[in-house]
C-alpha cells in the first residue's frame, strides 16, 4: 500500500505540474497582455500595474514567472475577474460546491439506476431483457444532453408543471451560505421554514440531476454488465455452484461483491465525463455552478476566469480520480501491485 500511495502521489505531483504549466501558458495564448490576463487587472493604473508586474516577476525569465505564478496559486490568489473585478477564488469557492452537489447527486442516481440494470442484463445474458437494456443504454448515451434537458423542461416543468425548471432553490427562502452545499446549509440554518426549503431544494435538483445522470447511468449499465458476465464465468462461481448454493446466494454473496469492485475503478473516469455534462446542463437549468460561470466568462472574454476555472475544475476532477483509485486499492488487494509469483 505504501508503494501504491507513493506512486499515486508521484502521479498527482506530475499532474499538478502539467496542469499549472498549461494554465500558466494560457495567459500567453489568450489575446492581450499576459500580465493582465493572469491578474485580471484591466482597470489598473500604471503604478498598480508596476506592482502587479513585480509580484508576478514578469521582467524575469519564464521559469521565475512560472514560480511566481505557482506562489500566487499556493496562496489562493487566482487574480480578479476581468468582468466583475471581484476575487476569482471567492467566486469559485461560492460556485464549486453547487456543482459538486449536483454532480454527486447525479452520480448517485446514475449508480443506483445503472448498476442494478447492468447486473440484470448480465444475469439474463443474451435474452430479451438483456437486449432491451442494451438498446435503451445505447439510446441513452447517444442523446445530446442539451436536447434532453430541454425536452425534460418542456415535459415536466411546462406541460405537467411538476418540477421547477431553473435555479437551485426558490428565491423566497433565505438560506445563509455556510458550506455552499445547499442541503447541508438548509439543515444547519435555524429558519422556521427549514423543511419547506429542503423540499423545495429537492424539487429543484431532481430534473437537472436526472438529465445529467442519463449518460453515466448507461455507461454504468455496460460496465456492470461486462464485469458481471466476467465474474459469472470465473471458476470460484463454478465452485460455489458445485457446492450446491442457490442462484440467489451465488449472486448476492459472491458475484455482486466481486463485480462491484471492478466498477468502482471506473467511477473516477466517469466523473470527468459527468462534470462535462453537468457544465452544459447548468447552462440550461440556470444552476448557479462553476460550469455556467465558466461558459459565461467565455462569452465575456474573461480570460482570467477561464484560466482559473480550468485549473480548479481539472484539479477537482483529478482529485476525485485519485480518491477512487485509493478506494479501489483499499477494497481490492490485487490492485495494490503485482504479486510475486503471479
Amino acid at each position, binding site marked *: 500500500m505504501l508503494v501504491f500511495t507513493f506512486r499515486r502521489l508521484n*502521479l498527482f505531483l*506530475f*499532474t499538478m505540474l*502539467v*496542469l499549472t504549466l498549461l494554465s500558466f501558458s*494560457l495567459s500567453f*495564448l*489568450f*489575446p492581450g497582455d499576459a500580465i493582465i490576463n493572469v491578474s485580471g487587472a484591466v482597470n489598473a493604473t500604471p503604478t498598480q500595474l508596476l506592482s502587479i508586474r513585480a509580484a508576478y516577476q514578469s521582467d524575469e525569465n519564464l521559469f521565475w514567472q512560472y514560480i511566481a505564478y505557482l506562489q500566487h496559486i499556493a496562496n489562493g490568489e487566482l487574480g480578479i475577474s476581468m468582468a466583475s473585478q471581484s476575487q476569482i477564488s471567492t467566486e469559485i469557492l461560492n460556485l464549486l460546491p453547487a456543482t459538486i452537489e449536483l454532480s454527486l447527486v447525479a452520480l448517485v442516481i446514475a449508480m443506483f439506476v445503472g448498476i442494478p440494470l447492468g447486473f440484470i442484463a448480465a444475469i439474463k445474458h443474451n435474452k430479451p431483457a438483456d437486449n432491451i437494456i442494451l438498446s435503451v443504454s*445505447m*439510446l441513452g*448515451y*447517444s*442523446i*445530446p*444532453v*442539451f*436536447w434532453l434537458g*430541454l*425536452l425534460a423542461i*418542456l415535459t415536466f416543468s*411546462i406541460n405537467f408543471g411538476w418540477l421547477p425548471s431553473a435555479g437551485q432553490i426558490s428565491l423566497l427562502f433565505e438560506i445563509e451560505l455556510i458550506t455552499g452545499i445547499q442541503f447541508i446549509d438548509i439543515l444547519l440554518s435555524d429558519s422556521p421554514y427549514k423543511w419547506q426549503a429542503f423540499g423545495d431544494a429537492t424539487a429543484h435538483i431532481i430534473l437537472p440531476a436526472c438529465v445529467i445522470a442519463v449518460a453515466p447511468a448507461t455507461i454504468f449499465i455496460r460496465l456492470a454488465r461486462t464485469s458481471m458476465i466476467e465474474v459469472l464465468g470465473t471458476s470460484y462461481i463454478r465452485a460455489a455452484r458445485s457446492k450446491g448454493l442457490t442462484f440467489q446466494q451465488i449472486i448476492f454473496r459472491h458475484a455482486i461483491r466481486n463485480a462491484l469492485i471492478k466498477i468502482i475503478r471506473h467511477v473516477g473516469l466517469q466523473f*470527468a*465525463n459527468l*462534470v*462535462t455534462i453537468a*457544465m*452544459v446542463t447548468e*447552462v440550461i437549468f440556470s444552476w448557479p455552478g462553476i460550469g455556467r460561470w*465558466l*461558459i459565461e466568462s*467565455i*462569452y465575456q472574454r474573461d*480570460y482570467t476566469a*477561464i484560466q482559473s476555472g*480550468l485549473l480548479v*475544475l*481539472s484539479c477537482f*476532477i*483529478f482529485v476525485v*480520480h485519485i480518491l477512487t483509485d485509493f478506494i479501489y486499492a483499499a477494497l481490492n488487494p490485487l490492485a495494490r501491485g503485482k504479486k510475486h509469483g503471479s
Partner: protein
Amino acid sequence: MARDKIYSEEIFPSPFMQHWQIFRKTPVAMLGFSCFIFLIVLAIFGPILAPHSPVEGQLDMLLLPPAWHVDGDISYLLGTDELGRDMLSRLMYGTSLTFGLSFIVVVISLVIGVVIGSLSALTTGLKSSFLNHFLDVILSIPSLLLAIIIVAILGPGISNTVWAVVIVLIPQFVHITRYAVKEESRKDYVLASRLDGASPFRILYYSIFPNIIDRIMSQATMAQSAAILDIATLGFLGLGAQIPLPEWGASLANGLDLFYIAPWTVYLPGLAILFAVVATNLVGEGIRHALKLRKER
C-alpha cells in the same frame, strides 16, 4: 454445389476482411452502417439536393408547421423557422456541417494520433513514461472542457471548433494506438518477423497495423460520436457555428425562444443529432462485436 474447393490452397482473408465478414452478418450493425453511408452521402450531396436555401427566408411562410400538420405546406416538408427558412433544407445543409465536419475531424485526428502513438510505442524509458503521464493528464480533463478552452483561445467560429475537437481527440488515438502496438509487439509473429531482420517500421507497417486496424476503427467510431456531440454542443452554446449557419446544435439553440410555439424547430435538429450518433454507435457496436467474436475463434 459451392465452388469454394476448386483450388487446393485455402484463401486467408486479411484481418480486416475477416472482420468485415463477421460485421456483415450482424443485421443491426449493417442497419447502422447503411444509415452511416446515407449520412455521408447526404453530407456530400445535401447542398445540391436541398429544395430551398438554408439562410434565405420566405417572409410569408413564417413558422409553418411540418407538412403532416393541418396548417402544413407540402413544399415545406418539415416546416419553417421564425425567419421562414425551410427546416428540411437547413437540416440537409447541417448534415455536411455537423456530420461531415465531424467525419473530417476524426480522419485528421486519427492520422495524427496513430502516427504519434506508433512512434511513441517504439520508444522506451523516460521519454515513454513522460508521455504516458502526460497523456493521463490530458485524458483526465473532460473533452468538452478542453474544447471550450481551445475555442476560448482561438475565438468562436466553426473552423476553430473543428481544430479544437481535432486537438481534443488526438490524445485518445495516441493512447489506443500506443497500447495496441505495445500489446501486439509482444506476440510471437512480430518476434518472427523481427528475427527475419525486419526494421521496426517494416514490422509496424506490415505486421502490426493490419492486426490493430479494427481496434483503431472502433475507437474512431467512438471519437466520431463524441465529435458530433461536441460540435453540436459548442454550436448550441454559441461558441461553435455562428448565427446563419444551419449547424444542428446552433439551429437548435436558434429555435429555443420559440420552443413552446414552434416545438419542431427544436425537436428536429435534436432528432437529427440523435440519429447521427445512434448510427455511428451502431457501427461501433458492430465492430466491437465482430472483434469479440474473432477473438473467441
